[in-house]
């Protein structure tokens, strides 16, 4: 269910809703067009290359390199309890880019453009409340359940 995706979710309904279910099981998925084979991350239901409406998910390795980042000191609604937090933008090995928090395996002084990162699924589960997201971590970090969103 896509409403699980994110600390604050703004778009609960989408044709790529199963992305969040995969993420809950520790897999980060991109999409592949079933007609022309074009890959996309983030996944999209409609092929931007050939306009075909059929797609399948494929698992990305989560390997990538850090393209840029920023430490946010002034946060919007829903994120004020986390300030300051660092958002990174990474180039993914297979295709596309990803935006996510830089996680705790990478201390602030070690953050460097061009460094290798691993996209790691994070699952936060409480009774009747599930949230899934991912963070950018040191290569080799494996996915985990977490007990806080901070």
């Amino acid at each position, binding site marked *: 269910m896509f409403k699980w995706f994110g*600390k604050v979710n703004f778009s609960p309904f*989408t044709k790529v809703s199963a992305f969040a279910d995969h993420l809950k099981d520790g897999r980060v998925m991109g999409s592949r067009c079933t007609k022309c084979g074009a890959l996309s991350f*983030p996944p999209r239901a409609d092929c931007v290359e050939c306009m075909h409406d059929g797609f399948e998910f494929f698992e990305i390795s989560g390997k990538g390199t850090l393209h840029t980042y920023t430490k946010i000191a002034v946060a*919007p609604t829903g994120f004020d309890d986390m300030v300051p937090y660092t958002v990174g933008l990474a180039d993914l090995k297979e295709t596309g*880019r990803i*935006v996510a928090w830089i996680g705790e395996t990478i201390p602030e002084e070690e953050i460097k453009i061009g460094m290798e990162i691993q996209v790691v699924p994070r699952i936060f589960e409480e009774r009747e409340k599930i949230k899934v997201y991912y963070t950018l971590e040191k290569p080799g970090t494996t996915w985990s359940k977490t007990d806080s969103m901070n």
Partner: protein
Amino acid sequence: MARVGIIGIGHAAFGRRSDATVQELAFEAFRAAMNDAGIGRSDIDASVIGSVPEYHKQRSLAGVVQEYLGLNPKPTWLTEVACASGCAAVRTGWMSIMAGVHRVVAIVGCQKMTELETPEILALMGRVGEVQWESIFGTTFPGYYAMFARRHMHEFGTTHEQMLSVAVKNHFYGAKNNYAMFRKEITIEKARDSDPVASPLQVFDCCANADGAACVILADEERAKALCKKPVIWLTGMGCATSSMSVLRRPNLVGLPSAQIAAAEAYEMAGVKPTDINVAEVHDCFTIAEIMACEDLGFCKKGDGGKLIADRQTYIGGKIPVNLDGGLKAKGHPVGATGVSMTVEIAKQLRGEAGERQVPNARIGLTHNVGGIGQYTFVQILRRE
């Protein structure tokens, strides 16, 4: 080819305007533009309102503005492309005249941003990016430009000091603009001491939300020549392009593709080169944005924007004077009004009416109005004969 000219310009003071509604601000700019043009409301065939709806309690803003301006039953409509809504209105008016549908059109950019409570502003701030894949990580508008800034520093050695020099310049000129929100010069030390917002950007790297309005009256060539007692300022190059909403789908993070394409289109239509531009208004929502704009517009090579400001080439007397009205940084940024305000400033410069901020003998000017992080860019070249 048919031509469209500016025959009247008007500007309301930008800032925290707790004395006025948005339609009252619109009226200030409209009245000034009508007086400037020396025409009456019966000469106006239509109006186009540039504004971003989510800042106002009033829904369907064009209707209330049209009524307050006293322009019923003439047609009106709203243009919205985030912070580029103003130049979108200019382009829409230009299109309607080029199409021969209307002959004289009032373009009104207006925005009231300071009425919102802080929680409402913080909630809006959290949805400026692409909400499905990006906003869920608490991305912000300064945060996006900060990521451009960080990458620009990495690729070209641009320094944060160079970025803050943009703020120093824009406050230097803003101090000389009666309509500016911040009419005070600042030092680089003061800028450097300001609070962090999104690293490397600090408070003095960012423009401020504001209230304000600006207006230009456009006319076809025949009406412009018949009505206008001042030099007509012609819209000779009209460029417009888009880039992906999502920062994840951009080819790079050191410039705005939409700005580069819109600029090429505008230069071609106007038959001029970047070196022909005498004065420019660019979208400095953040200091890094002005640096990238100078590059995207071809005022210098990609990567040399930091050096351009460090060498003071964007001051009067430099290679290309930029944002002599204080820019968004010092003038304030009432989003829908900004593009029209840029158009007013360039028209003023080309008429020789800019006072102590005047570029001597300016004949060709340019506006660069960006929506969001370059999702939309309008580049418009104005010329005095």
